[in-house]
């Protein structure tokens, strides 16, 4: 199973996002093959933020969230660098399966 940290970093390469949308993004990018647990996403996002790979900011309070704001996350320069390294490693891992080795 794809590591949650790697999946989150890859999902955020295409732009800032928040928990539910990130889960949907990962599901869509992997054609439904990778499903992330909702309860697992934010602890990992907070961990990545504390490591300096992500930064976060509050959106506007929304009625569909009971008046609470969404917390958006985006990659820092260091996070983008790590995400690219991860992507290269994943491509290397997938080459035999794709008949490219």
């Amino acid at each position, binding site marked *: 199973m794809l590591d949650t940290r790697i999946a989150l970093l890859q999902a955020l390469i295409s732009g800032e996002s928040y*928990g539910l949308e990130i889960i949907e993004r990962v599901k869509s990018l992997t054609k439904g093959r990778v499903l992330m647990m909702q309860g697992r996403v*934010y602890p990992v996002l*907070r961990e990545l933020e504390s490591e300096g790979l992500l930064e976060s900011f509050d959106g506007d309070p929304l009625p569909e969230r009971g008046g609470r704001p969404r917390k958006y996350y985006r990659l820092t320069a260091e996070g983008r660098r790590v995400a690219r390294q991860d992507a290269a490693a994943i491509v290397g891992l997938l080459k035999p399966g794709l008949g490219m080795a």
Partner: protein
Amino acid sequence: MQDDAAARRWRDTLLVKAQEVVLEAIRADNESADVMRSAERALRMAGAVVGPGRRNERANDQETTARQASTHPGGVLEPLRANVEAVVDDAEASEGGSLYSSQVHSSKPRVEPARAHRALDRWAALLPQRVVNEDLGDYIEDINRRAAEGQRWLIWVRVVVAILTTAVNSVGYVRKALGKATVR
């Protein structure tokens, strides 16, 4: 070590509060057969996936406590499930056994997530603000989406899952915050 003990105590308190919040929400709606059935199903599912933990020592109904001791020893959610079963039995008796009849359950479900919101709003008062805005906010948004899609029975499943996961995530969040504070 002290941090671990404090985190365990807080986790236990959160789980007991979770039980109270859900039960109160369910009892408030005990005239509604749909809600009772949904809640019971949600709790059965949650009880099936949650591992062993401490039993609730604050159950004040002796009959329910006896039942949970004899049939469900050890599970964190078992007291909750036993209590819900007792509430379902009471409601069923008061409605002359019609609680599960097809006459009571219409084929087109009504979608009212407001009760779920009230339960989660009360629960939110016990959690760190960041966990409320992030984790719980997402669950509420998700519940609203499911309600809009007519998946009413899933709402109470999501409420129970939201309470459990935000309890666990809050303990983790507070432990990390305590760790940082200690390092400094």
